[in-house]
């Protein structure tokens, strides 16, 4: 059996019934949901707790929640990071949580916690996509 055939066989065996796009979107919208759809409940729970806790701590530290269209390029990058948290970010904006600007020193840490939670959620969602497509071994 050639290497290409072995790779194709492995790909066929590891490919999930869940569409990679669905796993990606679910994982973005709710942290860990992509892994839950792929029947990885422990990984899903750990991802959800880690990302949601990080986001919540950022909010509790009075971190800045970035919004689009402020005109500042750094704010746009911050917004892209925050948006990675998916449903958590949408919920935060709907409930008007967080602050529009950093007002105390520790709040700067909070802003970073929120942005990094969003970026980690993107990493987790892409991992769910890779598992669903068979590119990563389950």
């Amino acid at each position, binding site marked *: 059996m050639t290497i290409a055939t072995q790779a194709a066989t492995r790909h066929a065996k590891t490919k999930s019934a869940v569409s990679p796009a669905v796993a990606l979107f679910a994982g973005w919208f709710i942290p860990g949901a992509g892994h839950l759809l792929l029947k990885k409940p422990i990984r899903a729970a750990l*991802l959800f707790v880690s990302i949601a806790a990080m986001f919540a701590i950022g909010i509790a530290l009075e971190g800045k929640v970035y919004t689009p269209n402020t005109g500042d390029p750094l704010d746009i990058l911050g917004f892209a990071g925050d948006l990675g948290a998916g449903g958590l970010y949408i919920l935060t904006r709907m409930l008007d949580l967080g602050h529009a600007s950093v007002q105390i020193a520790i709040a700067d840490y909070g802003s970073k916690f929120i942005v990094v939670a969003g970026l980690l959620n993107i*990493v987790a969602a892409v*991992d769910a996509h890779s598992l669903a497509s068979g590119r990563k071994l389950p």
Partner: protein
Amino acid sequence: MTLTHFSAVLLFSLFTSVVFGITQRSDPKKMVRFGAFCFALFVGGTIAASWVMWAIKH
């Protein structure tokens, strides 16, 4: 809510390491090992950088 600088480092390192461990490795044992490695690097790197900044100031 208030956090000390060090507790903020510990929380940041913990959550980030968990996600890195799960997403960057396939085998559960390797996930734990890589997560612990990332955690040690985050915390150790921060302490090292803190001492470097202290040394520059003094």
